[in-house]
């Protein structure tokens, strides 16, 4: 085998797949944050229908309709904001696809969160907001809310009203 052929093989089998995989990895991770990505799973259809329902009273729908969250609405609330949050959210998503098609690890019953919704996900936007900090209702429970001892969702309901 000539040197040129060897270099070509190194390019085709070594360098090209690595560069290509890095590009697809980055692109797909970025796209996986979009609402359209979540909506592409038909399991999510009732939740997406609720988001887009102009008469829905759910918190999620209000955030979507009023553009309180401009883009990536599902991701913004449902990814935990620690170091591994974005990665673990995507791994969970892939695990759900495998569970759906193979039945392996498929949870029984209705869809629910793995753990209680962390206040940090709300406080990331609301935490520094003037109307949040100056509200007398919030002031009374501020420490508990910031310490994640009292969930925002205790008072702020309904979160989702899945439709269809």
């Amino acid at each position: 085998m000539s040197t040129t052929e060897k270099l070509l093989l190194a390019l085709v089998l070594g360098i090209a797949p690595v560069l290509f995989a890095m590009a697809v990895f980055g692109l797909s991770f970025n796209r996986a944050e979009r609402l359209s990505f979540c909506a592409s799973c038909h399991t999510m259809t009732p939740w997406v229908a609720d988001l887009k329902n102009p008469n829905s009273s759910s918190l999620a729908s209000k955030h979507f309709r009023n553009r309180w969250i401009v883009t990536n609405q599902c991701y913004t609330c449902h990814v935990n904001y620690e170091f591994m949050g974005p990665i673990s959210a995507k791994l969970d998503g892939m695990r759900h696809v495998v569970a759906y098609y193979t039945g392996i690890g498929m949870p029984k019953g209705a869809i629910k969160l793995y753990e209680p919704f962390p206040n940090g996900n709300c406080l990331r936007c609301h935490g520094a907001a003037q109307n949040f900090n100056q509200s007398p209702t919030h002031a009374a429970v501020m420490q508990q809310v910031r310490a994640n001892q009292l969930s925002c969702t205790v008072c702020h309901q309904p979160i989702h009203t899945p439709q269809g």
Partner: protein
Amino acid sequence: MSKLIEWALVATALGFLLAIPCLLVTTPITMVLFFLVSLPLFGIGLLLYLAAVVRDLRSHKVL
């Protein structure tokens, strides 16, 4: 061309083929295909290639 290289080329070609849907349209299914099938195929291709390189170097008594 050794069998190892041939298999490496097949694995890498399949890896590329199955990664293209994810590149064009990212959905949970295409993403699973890329991460759980394409990436391992790229890995297998690379390992087979490295094995062929090592074998070639040994045959020339470099290693």
